[in-house]
């Protein structure tokens, strides 16, 4: 009989406990809902500054990337709280849509990826590539920060799909994602082009000269990072420089080959680096060039190549 009593007590306890919990839940749920949006209130107001009342909404999402959905009760609009695994850590951000199908806000809540690489998903260039797009536009990932930016773009796609489904917008794939975009180049220190102290091993070596019209085009090899560090099988960097000697102007610089560290030295391949030399006058011997931040040696090798071309023309 004792055993039975025990089980009866257990059963009774379970039933009473369950009942009280269901009751308590019913009572407290409204409070919890209200408190829940409180956590995100600040972010929600950043995206919709004229609104104060946001209501959490239900949603179905198979991707698992949408964490919460809020509706702007005052002025209309939706904010998705999204989360996806980035490179080092989870990336959490808020994405705001207005009622016309435009993305009006993108705010990072949590981002701890590598500065200069994954962290670019929080920076101006990427943000401006997101805000202003419509719900049927694809967003480009950032080359060189693939894991982090793909995580964000995948989450944005999930939000867009949900938004389109909710608003009845057809996405016929016209706004397909453009090619990955290289992040803007960050420049580092300035380096004078004319220097006396370039060691022989680092000086540029001219391997080809072509004269055309009034211009001379030199193809120059210069030791880059790999050669200086004496890596196995290291090759120099190759640069093509076109000069207008009569006017003492560098017409154009083309970085043909960079054999330095992938992802670091090859940043000098970015068009913005060579662009600074377009129509640059070298009449003034103190003329300076910008090196690429974190890729100083490779940048210097290009500048050494330019120097060799200029010296050859004296």
């Amino acid at each position, binding site marked *: 009989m004792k055993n039975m009593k025990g089980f009866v007590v257990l059963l009774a306890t*379970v039933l009473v*406990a*369950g009942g009280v*919990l*269901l009751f*308590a*839940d019913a009572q407290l749920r409204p409070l919890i809902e209200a408190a829940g949006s409180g956590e995100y209130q600040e972010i929600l107001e950043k995206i919709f500054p004229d609104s104060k009342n946001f209501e959490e909404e239900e949603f179905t999402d198979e991707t698992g990337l949408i964490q919460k959905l809020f509706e702007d009760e005052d002025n209309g609009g939706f904010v998705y709280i999204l989360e996806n*695994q980035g490179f080092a850590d989870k990336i959490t951000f808020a994405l705001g849509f207005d009622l016309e199908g435009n993305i009006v806000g993108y705010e990072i809540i949590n981002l701890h990826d590598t500065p200069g690489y994954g962290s670019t998903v929080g920076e101006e260039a990427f943000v401006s590539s997101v805000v202003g797009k419509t719900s049927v536009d694809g967003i480009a990932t950032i080359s060189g920060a693939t894991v982090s930016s793909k995580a964000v773009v995948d989450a944005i796609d999930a939000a867009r799909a949900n938004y389109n489904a909710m608003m009845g917008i057809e996405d016929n794939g016209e706004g397909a994602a453009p090619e990955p975009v290289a992040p803007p180049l960050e420049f580092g220190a300035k380096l004078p082009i004319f220097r006396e102290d370039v060691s022989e091993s680092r000086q540029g070596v001219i391997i080809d000269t072509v004269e055309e019209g009034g211009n001379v085009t030199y193809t120059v090899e210069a030791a880059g990072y790999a050669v200086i560090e004496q890596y196995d099988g290291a090759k120099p960097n190759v640069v093509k420089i076109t000069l207008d000697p009569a006017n003492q102007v560098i017409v154009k610089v083309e970085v043909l080959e960079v054999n330095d560290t992938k992802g670091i030295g090859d940043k000098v391949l970015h068009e913005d680096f060579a662009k600074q030399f377009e129509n640059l006058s070298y009449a003034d011997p103190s003329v300076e060039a910008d090196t690429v931040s974190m890729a100083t040696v490779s940048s210097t090798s290009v500048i050494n190549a330019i120097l060799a071309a200029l010296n050859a023309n004296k």
Partner: protein
Amino acid sequence: MENILPILLGTILINNLALTKLVGLGQLAHFGEEEGEILCIGVSAALVMAISSILGYFAGSLFDLGVLNLLVYVLLILVSTALVMSGVKKVKPEMYERVKKVLPLLSANSAILYLLLMTGTEGMEFLLQGTVANDAQELLPVLVTAVGAPMGLLFAFILYGAVRERLSVAHTPKAFKGLPILLVYAALAVLALSGLNGIL
């Protein structure tokens, strides 16, 4: 099912619930006086974890438990414990006599409930985070969770049993005798295991 060994090892060592995620330490600090008992308790704990995690997974996916989830999980753990206890009684009756007061308390093991709660909210894949295989097939996460995590718990029990044995004869500063020095050990274990992150 390639790479299953490193994944299992990863679950047992790196994502070890008791050792790195800090659940169930209270029980590890108290249970089992001698080797034989510790092994029995450890295996029982592992079995309870395995059984309850599978039951919990199905319960969670079949019903929307909502507010009652804790009640249901606790009941499932109690059932699993009862099952394991009767198993121990059949297989090793003498051992059973010695541990029968302690085994029921396995129902109160935080690690076991933690596993149930996590698989409830994040699905069976959560223990795979940080290891290989993001394109895992259906069976793999379940296998890893129901086998790997319990093995990790067993490992933790044995480890702590050995440590407590050593600590009881070591020269500990008076103020740290007992739980504090064990916690220092636990901290060192966490640091040591976190070093394995990324190696497997």
